């Protein structure tokens, strides 16, 4: 602790000299501070303090900290020790780190000064748009951004906006999209964007240029990230100038959520999608159904939910799906619905006999389950019943119609129990049945998709995607979502064979691991917990092998299976770890979880919390206050 004389001197000269434009405008050299200092100095000199009660010596100031950027770090001071009063948020934004998440991949330059703004003083002008649809989407995405700003402003308690920060500036956001007229997130969507923010007279002008709606939306997300609430100023601030050139490293950046092991209300899904958008993820992989439940009530086959849902309050209607899809679309996210087959099905498919369609599935809830499946309850489709393919065609058609995703599809296809089928079909090798089932499913998928196979049809990695069966699959039609441990040879084999792959390695990107076994008899669970650092540092494509240069890695997805997770715990389980994945897939920086990553992710976590997402903290709050001291 320095003496008061030192503090005063520093405050008057060294620190004040470093104060930027904003700080000079916003932050005062308060006469009050001088007075307090003088009084305290006097108190220090008088030595009767030993007998006086402590509270009478107290100067009565609310606990308050001020952060100053020194040597590229935000250092915390007692507000009364400094001549400037600056919030942590503002210090972070104006100090060395970009504070952007995910880190842009192109050149970035950011001003070190900020100006006040207000959500309702932002306006949009669409300068160029290839289609009406894109224009409409830009307008909606702009409103989403503005609403997020408004939410931040609600954090200002009462009327404590400081008058001395000056009037809020008008911000004109000019968006130009030159490229695809299709607003959907597609495999070939160019997500790059450029953002240029600059003062113009008394207002600010933002130029966002992109080749697709999704790219433009990412630009708006970045614009949102250079806007923050300063709790001391009681106002939103924005960087005075910024230029960002940005594009993702991988086209597929996903999060899987399983809504079958436990049901999640639509509101939880929407919040998750919004948090994904904040991190520029682009694929919500919705593992809708499994053997435990089938919560989606299809229009064409309502029986599935009628028999398979946990209850009438645990059902997603077509309207729900449309709501989710639309919500995601405006946020640059495709909804990839997966109805896992032929395994991972259950009672939802149990009504065949009573409907005169024969057994649509076998081994439904068979016991002992360990003989017929990986976890209770069991169930596997009957590949010999032609009705199952009719039914799947309905399911696939409805998925494509509702999600409007027709270039990529997920067939499921993991963990088939050979024993289950062997019990019912002793004349055929279960692997042949599986292969045949997959072909048939592909065939009805084509029909459901207007006679055309989707560009990329994903299967989970399994015995079917290993030699000698892998050779029987066509890499032009199928892709593989690889979930085995990263050391397993299967990832490499699949990639070497030219299958487009989405990486979801269980030892890095399975968010459900580390919570012990939820049943008595088996420890079939994975562990330990994958920390955000592990999630971040996993780069399986960064190997020395010569083949790896040609590996068709589409990207990756974090997987949140929900055997041990219900609605209340979703956010803290998924975030901020999935944000770590988002940067890995967007920027793929060679570095691991360095100091700068901690700083930026901590800020991003705070953004998520401000958006209403219950993200878990990275470290003690003191470390957010003193970021460099905990590294």
């Amino acid at each position, binding site marked *: 602790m320095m003496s008061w004389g030192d503090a005063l001197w520093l405050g008057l000269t060294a620190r004040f000299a470093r104060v930027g434009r904003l700080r000079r405008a916003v932050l005062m050299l308060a006469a009050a501070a001088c007075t307090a200092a003088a009084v305290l100095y006097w108190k220090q000199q008088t030595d009767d303090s030993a007998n006086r009660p402590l509270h009478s010596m107290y100067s009565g100031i609310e606990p308050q900290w001020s952060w100053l950027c020194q040597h590229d770090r935000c250092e915390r001071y007692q507000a009364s020790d400094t001549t400037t009063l600056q919030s942590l948020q503002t210090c972070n934004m104006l100090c060395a780190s970009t504070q952007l998440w995910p880190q842009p991949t192109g050149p970035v330059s950011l001003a070190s000064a900020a100006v006040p703004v207000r959500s309702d003083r932002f306006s949009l002008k669409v300068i160029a748009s290839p289609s009406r649809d894109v224009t409409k989407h830009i307008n909606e995405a702009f409103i989403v951004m503005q609403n997020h700003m408004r939410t931040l402003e609600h954090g200002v308690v009462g009327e404590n906006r400081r008058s001395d920060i000056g009037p809020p500036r008008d911000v004109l956001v000019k968006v130009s999209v030159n490229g695809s007229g299709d607003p959907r997130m597609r495999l070939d969507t160019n997500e790059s964007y450029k953002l240029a923010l600059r003062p113009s007279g008394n207002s600010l002008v933002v130029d966002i240029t992109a080749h697709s709606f999704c790219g433009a939306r990412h630009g708006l997300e970045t614009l949102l990230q250079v806007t923050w609430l300063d709790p001391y100023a009681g106002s939103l601030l924005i960087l005075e100038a910024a230029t960002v050139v940005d594009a993702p490293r991988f086209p597929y950046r996903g999060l899987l959520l399983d809504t079958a092991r436990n049901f999640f209300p639509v509101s939880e899904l929407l919040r998750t999608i919004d948090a994904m958008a904040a991190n520029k993820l682009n694929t919500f992989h919705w593992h809708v159904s499994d053997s435990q439940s089938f919560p989606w009530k299809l229009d064409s086959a309502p029986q599935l939910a009628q028999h398979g849902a946990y209850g009438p309050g645990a059902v997603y209607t*077509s309207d729900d799906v449309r709501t989710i899809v639309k919500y995601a679309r405006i946020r640059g996210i495709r909804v990839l619905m997966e109805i896992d087959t032929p395994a991972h099905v259950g009672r939802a498919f149990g009504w065949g006999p009573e409907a005169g369609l024969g057994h649509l599935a076998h081994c439904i809830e068979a016991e002992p389950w360990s003989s017929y499946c990986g976890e209770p309850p069991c169930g596997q489709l009957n590949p010999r019943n032609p009705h199952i393919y009719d039914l799947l065609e309905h399911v696939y058609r409805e998925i494509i119609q509702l999600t*409007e995703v027709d270039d990529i599809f997920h067939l499921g296809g993991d963990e088939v129990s050979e024993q289950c089928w062997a019990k019912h079909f002793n004349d055929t090798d279960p692997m042949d049945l599986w292969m045949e089932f997959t072909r048939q499913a592909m065939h009805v998928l084509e029909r459901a998709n207007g006679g055309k196979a989707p560009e990329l049809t994903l299967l989970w990695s399994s015995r079917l995607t290993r030699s000698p069966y892998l050779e029987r699959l066509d890499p032009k039609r199928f892709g593989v979502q690889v979930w085995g441990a990263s050391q397993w040879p299967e990832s490499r084999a699949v990639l070497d064979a030219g299958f487009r792959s989405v990486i979801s390695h269980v030892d890095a990107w399975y968010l459900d691991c580390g919570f012990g076994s939820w049943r008595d008899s088996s420890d079939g669970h994975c562990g330990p917990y994958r920390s955000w650092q592990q999630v971040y540092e996993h780069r399986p494509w960064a190997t020395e092998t010569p083949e790896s240069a040609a590996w068709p890695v589409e990207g990756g997805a974090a997987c949140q299976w929900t055997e041990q997770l219900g609605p209340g715990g979703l956010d803290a389980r998924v975030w901020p770890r999935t944000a770590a994945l988002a940067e890995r897939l967007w920027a793929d920086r060679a570095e691991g979880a360095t100091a700068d990553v901690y700083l930026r992710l901590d800020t991003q976590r705070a953004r998520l919390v401000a958006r209403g997402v219950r993200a878990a903290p990275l470290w003690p709050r003191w470390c957010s206050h003193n970021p460099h001291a905990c590294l």
Partner: protein
Amino acid sequence: MALHGLLALMTTMHLAGVLCNVESTFDEITPQIYEPSWMYKCVPDEGCQRSEHPRPTLSDNSTSAFFDSLDVCRIVCGRFGGIWPKPVTAALSSQTVKIHPNYLRYDLLNVPAETRELLVEMTQVISNNLLAECGGHVTEVVDTQVVVIIVVKTAITSLNWNTDEQYMLDVQTRGGEVSVHIEAETIYGARHGLETFSQLISSDKRDFSDVEHCGLVLVSGAKIRDRPIYKHRGLVLDTSRHFIPMVDIKRTIDGMATTKMNVFHWHATDSHSFPLEASRVPQFTRYGAYSGSEMYTTEEIRELIHYAKVRGIRVVIEIDAPAHSGNGWQWGREYGLGDLAVCVNAYPWRHLCIEPPCGQLNPANPNMYRVLRNLYQDVADLLNSPPLLHMGGDEVYFGCWNSSQEIISYMKDQGYDTTEEGFMKLWGEFHNKALQIWDEEISAKGLDPQPVMLWSSQLTQAQRISQHLDKERYIIEVWEPLNSPLLTQLLRLGYRTVSVPKDIWYLDHGFWGRTVYSNWRRMYAHTLPRDEGVLGGEVAMWTEYCDAQALDTRVWPRAAAVAERLWSDPTSTVYSAEPRLQRLRTRLIARGLRPDAMSPAWCSQHDSKCL
């Protein structure tokens, strides 16, 4: 209908070339209206299982074994129904009776007048919990009179290790009237009886229902005799690594009351922050709180302590010292008091403390004791009588003290070597001076000396503890891992202990470093020695990697597993406890908590099928 829906949808589609060839095969088979086709069946020794069997007719004798609602099935299925923690003995009817809170009356005539006010508050909590079963609104009104007659024998309202918590609960239904008798020595026993009574009640809503209709049903007959095995059933909550807002603390207290835990061990301060307002020393929060809104005012603390008392819970405030003290103590020089703490926020930290930020009280500075006395006075003012203080006492780093010239010369003056043993003496001296101050302050309030709690540490090692810490005065909270002999050694030496094995009952483990997460099964399976000296145990929620956002799911339902271990210490298996814990989970949700899921919902609908 579905066909039209699809065609209408098609017109809005962007997909070119998709031909919608809807066959009607699947549409014709079952109607569109969702009709759940199952009930829950109570299977002896297994639990409640979703059953597709046709609905039994009313004349069927087996009607009682089938239920529309899973929660209702659970309150009557199995010997202990839906009660958590498991009572010592229980005989429950398999019949239920519909009730409504409007016709619930408490008879407090046989309760000492001094306790009545508190008991009224206790009954209000229970009534609110019953409403919460139906989301605050019980739509099905029945006029069955329910009279809860409470008998409390003593007028004691203080809460400590001698508090008699046993109770008897009888429920009888006769001629459309329900009489409930609760008899206990103290109001705290009566409160537990009320809690158990509330656990005989459930909403008749189906799980995953989409209707608003909700009624309450009560087990129509019950005879329960119950008392805890361990006196100290606690939960540690750290509010220093992260500030936990009062509303979240209160919700945690609600969960504790639901599971009959009785000690809220409030790890209020640490080196990271000092959120606890001390009226005599406002500097603590001014220099130690994360912000003006991230602190607990005296008013709020008082209110919390009362809130807990109404729920049968004693609040133990921990002022961790001499280590784990930093922010909040760094203003001494500025106020002419010298260094109250040393190595505060020192960097690099690795040799000075267990984790940043560092900070340790300065035992060479008499002013430190003066400030500590003021703080203890404030704590003594806040706590209910008899006050229980936790003095912390863990993880002292000698490297920190050794880095201060002032402390080294003080040690020379005292004749302590700057060896490990010398520092031990200094450390022991600190605790004994602190205890003396505490004794003086509570004696000034006319109270007898009270035992204080202390974490286990190097100072409490078996070969050393007796030289420094009086076994009559210190209760040692042992947090060493399971394989440590310390707990047994301390018991042999005659110390009273509270056990918190860190590798099994720490709720923060599994999210950092090499720690391993204990799920509820593992936490439940751990047992404590049955020894006079074991007062009980605690679960600990350290908050380096947890704040209010993640709090509930980290704590619940795992803390409940420990609560049952401490209340009834059952010999039965984890597996047989699961259906009751599933019921507890839905109860916690109804009461506004967000407990984690323990298994796929399918497993909770099919007890014993997910082994």
